[in-house]
């Protein structure tokens, strides 16, 4: 796809990725009576109300008690059900890390841990809720698949796809309305990176909301004569190493962009692949060992080094190091 086609999205619909989850889940629930939903008093925020209204016997509000929710989901999976838990990223990971580790990951339970309000773009609620460590925590757990889709359509497609995958999944999405630039009804292949725009000077790997930021950066760079190989790494684990290596073999340098701490996330994952198999100059866009704060999404991204200009600078820096 051409950058111009992607960028048109600016004038197109915006929708929150969490609605992609809610709509996908409802579709799944209508198709498969083994699908069960759980929330910890956030059915509305996770866009799970329609599921709850249509299938009350298969929807369990756990109250403000996430640890128990994770355990109940593990038990439902043991009995052959397909549970989707929905709460904020903060309460889906760090708060219940040991429950997930023992009852889901180590026990190989087919539970989909679905997390909204990840990252800085949650906005005004501030750093208590702006989880920026979740990708790292979840990709460290053996048996877990970690998926970070980029827009409404892709979040819906990913929600449908994880139901077909047997095993624990962490599906991470967000709160704000965000441009839709991928196709409705797209196929979603877990572990298969999505090339967005072909280029030859630099590989730009992004996930989640940062894919949109990366598209805008790539467009501006193109106008300056820098050709960007832009790839959406929607699956952090298992990582599409082949796509990463093919791209960097061609461009000779790499930049990662993620709404996450620089420690532990997409950047680390890509760096590990390159260090082992194809050492190349790299730059990293992410939050540099800080907590966030209250604000609105774009000013927050700009303040914490995740703005479009930050990506452009990182790209030039990586190219300079070649």
């Amino acid at each position, binding site marked *: 796809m051409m950058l111009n086609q992607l960028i048109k999205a600016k004038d197109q619909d915006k929708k929150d990725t969490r609605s992609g989850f809610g709509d996908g889940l409802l579709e799944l629930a209508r198709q498969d009576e083994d699908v069960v939903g759980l929330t910890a008093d956030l059915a509305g925020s996770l866009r799970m109300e329609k599921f709850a209204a249509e299938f009350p016997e298969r929807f*369990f509000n756990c109250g403000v008690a996430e640890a128990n929710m994770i355990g109940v989901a593990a*038990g439902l999976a*043991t009995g052959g059900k397909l549970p989707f838990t929905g709460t904020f990223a903060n309460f889906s990971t760090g708060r219940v890390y040991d429950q997930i580790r023992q009852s889901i990951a180590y026990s190989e339970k087919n539970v989909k841990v679905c997390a909204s309000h990840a990252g800085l773009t949650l906005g005004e609620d501030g750093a208590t809720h702006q989880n920026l460590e979740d990708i790292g925590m979840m990709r460290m757990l053996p048996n877990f698949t970690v998926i970070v889709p980029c827009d409404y359509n892709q979040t819906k497609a990913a929600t449908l796809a994880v139901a077909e995958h047997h095993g624990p999944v962490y599906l991470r999405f967000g709160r704000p309305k965000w441009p839709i630039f991928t196709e409705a009804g797209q196929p979603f292949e877990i572990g298969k990176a999505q090339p967005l725009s072909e280029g030859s000077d630099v590989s730009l790997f992004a996930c989640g909301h940062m894919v949109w930021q990366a598209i805008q950066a790539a467009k501006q760079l193109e106008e300056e004569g820098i050709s960007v190989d832009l790839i959406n790494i929607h699956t952090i684990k298992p990582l599409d190493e082949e796509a990463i290596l093919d791209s960097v073999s061609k461009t000779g340098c790499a930049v990662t962009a993620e709404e996450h701490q620089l420690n532990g996330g997409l950047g680390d994952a890509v760096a590990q692949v390159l260090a082992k198999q194809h050492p190349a100059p790299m730059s990293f866009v992410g939050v540099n060992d800080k907590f966030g704060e209250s604000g609105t999404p774009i000013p927050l991204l700009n303040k914490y080094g995740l703005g479009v200009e930050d990506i452009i600078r990182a790209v030039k820096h990586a190219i300079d190091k070649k």
Partner: protein
Amino acid sequence: MADIKELQRIASQVRRDIIRQTHMAGSGHPGGSLGCADFLTALYFEIMDHHTDFNMEGKGEDLFFLSNGHISPLWYSVLARSGYFPLEELRTFRKINSRLQGHPATEEGLPGIRVASGSLGQGLSVAIGAALSKRLNQDDKHVFALTGDGEIQEGQIWEAAMFAAHHKVDNLIATVDWNGQQIDGPNEEVMSLGDLPAKWAAFGWDVLMMNGNDMADVIAKLQEAKRHSGKGKPIVILMRTVMGYGVDFMEGDHNWHGSPPNDEQTERALSQLEETLGDY
């Protein structure tokens, strides 16, 4: 009618297995294991309708979840003697390349284990989920769960307690091993549990009391608990046991929570426990 004497004979052999496993491994948790031996023997040899040709989902059978996973030598003995896996495998307890991990796990595929446990406070929630899946599947069998008493100091237990009452999980029979001891000492010194029957009742549970080291009472109360099921309330049995029951020098002593017997202690312990079914 349950043959109480026969169940007691099985429990005696199970206790020997616990002593021998922990002795051979040089580690493990004999105290709580010995205390709960009558209960688990009753469940697997009399109360539960279960299949030794193990399948994870367990549709159409009663299920058991061990939340206080450290009493694994007890569970392994009962599973092996029920026919889930060869008795000889008890020799591998806590050794490298074994399916009998220090705390129960599913990864090695040991038949009878449905979830890992050992990090405390989690198993009751998992049992509730399994009970809900039975309800959704119109499966009228029961789900049993066991927790320790120190374990219920974990907040997740009370989250689970609230949930089970709210969602009327009435095919669940939870048991608390109320031996009054935990690793650092008596509950009352470490963290008082307060009025446990009143607490569980206040959370909306049907509460039964049981002497967990009296086989006749164990059978009677478990049967009573099954009769109480299906009435809109989860059921909890507060089971009084003696830590280390059956071995005089271990009884009531929290130091046997997580320490194995040495050679001499093993000999003394085994001399107090009749070999009824043959050692492995």
